[in-house]
């Protein structure tokens, strides 16, 4: 298990500052929701933690390890993308086991953990199907299962429910909450939906861009314990 420490992180795209001196601590096992309007940089911050963006200044620590200069695959994280990013040329089983295959785990262990992941998300009947044959909700569950079986101590979610219809979203929200209780990973969850943020997180932190139209500086305007 691991905490996440974001220390004075700056990120600049070209000449536009996207993150300005952001510091944030997420404790071990915590479910942190980043809430804010679109374009304010929540996703950028998440991608900096994942290693998909290089920070211009500051540090990111996972546990006691400084991961600022590490590639995504060396950070021990798992991520769920807004578009799910499920691989269309692999079956559901292939998708869920992809990360384990990349880590060169033994075959029987992969089979076992894929089965467990599929059971956890109710995907067992679909293991041999291709993503094109699944509904949006099922694809979303594949993305979550794929991230969970990695057993990474840190789970990053970028608006994982925003592409689902309202009813399905309620269901998925409840599922994610249950999963978090079961697996207890340190989680950062990005959303622009206030209701979602309030119902999910152990901490909800609201970020707001300043008055200038540029997404230059932010302030944490409220933080409350639930």
């Amino acid at each position: 298990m691991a905490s996440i420490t974001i220390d004075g992180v700056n990120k600049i795209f070209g000449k536009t500052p996207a993150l300005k001196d952001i510091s944030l601590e997420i404790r071990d096992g915590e479910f942190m929701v980043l809430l804010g309007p679109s374009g304010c940089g929540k996703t950028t911050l998440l991608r900096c933690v994942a290693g998909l963006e290089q920070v211009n200044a500051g540090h990111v620590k996972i546990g006691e390890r400084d991961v600022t200069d590490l590639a995504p695959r060396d950070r021990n994280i798992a991520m769920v993308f807004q578009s799910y990013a499920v691989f269309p040329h692999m079956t559901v089983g292939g998708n869920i086991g992809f990360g384990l295959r990349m880590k060169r785990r033994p075959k029987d262990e992969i089979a076992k953990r894929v089965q467990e992941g599929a059971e956890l998300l109710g995907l067992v009947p679909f293991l041999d199907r291709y993503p094109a044959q699944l509904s949006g909700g099922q694809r979303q569950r594949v993305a979550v299962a794929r991230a969970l079986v990695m057993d990474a101590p840190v789970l990053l979610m970028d608006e994982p429910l925003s592409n689902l219809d309202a009813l399905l979203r309620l269901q998925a929200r409840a599922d994610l909450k249950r999963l978090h209780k079961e697996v207890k990973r340190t989680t950062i969850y990005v959303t622009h939906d206030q209701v979602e943020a309030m119902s999910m997180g152990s901490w909800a932190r609201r970020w707001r861009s300043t008055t200038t139209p540029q997404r230059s500086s932010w302030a944490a305007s409220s933080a409350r314990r639930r």
Partner: protein
Amino acid sequence: MNARVLDRSLLYGAAIFLAIWVLVPFYLIAISAFTPQAKIFDYPKPLVPTSLSTDTMQFFVEARGVIPSVLNSLLVAVFTIIFGLTLGTPAGYALARFRFRGREAFQVIVLATKMFPIAILSIPLAVTFLQLGLYDNLVSVALVHTAMALPFIVLVTGGVFVAVSHELEEAAQTLGCSRWGAFLRVALPLALPGLAAAAIFTFVISWNEVFAATILTLRTRTLPAQVLASLATSPLAYKFAGGLFMVLPAIVFIFLIRKYLMNLWGSR
């Protein structure tokens, strides 16, 4: 008749029209190639051939230099595909993924290479290849064909990689792939149908190219060069035979590679 039926019939009508447009000349060449020499000038031509003979075709195929030139052409086409895709795919990928300085300029320059007619380039190229000792060599012909096909390959593969979501590669990276591994395991397999299209195109460019091949070779002729050199003065029947013979491998090749074009994964 509702709008959908109309849509359908227009679509199928257009498809049938295009198919006929393309197939009729092939058909005429094919039956002419198998018509006995004496009947080749018959008019009106019967739609279904009344008498078939393989004499002309046989004579053409057995003519000196035809079989070796076919092999030469195939080799040149394969080399061209290998060179072209090896050089062009990374360039297309870079154009699709990275916003680098001079990107637009690069695109224009890639296209600008098409502005120089091969007729102008051939003579200096022949001289250069003579000096380098590459003259009358299949690899040199393949190099020229690669240069001709590269702009298409770069632009086509660029378009292909734009269509493969970058998030898929990022997801692969968070799941334990390096940048390169994510390309190999995710972007490349998804781009295969498009790359196959680029390969077909390259094959056709190389297979049909006659000017550079004629100028740059003497003994190791490719098929078009051989046909040009030997059939110009032959009777009409042999021209049909040569024409059919040149078209056939391209058709076979497209049939073989067709499923990669049509068969995008899943149910669509």
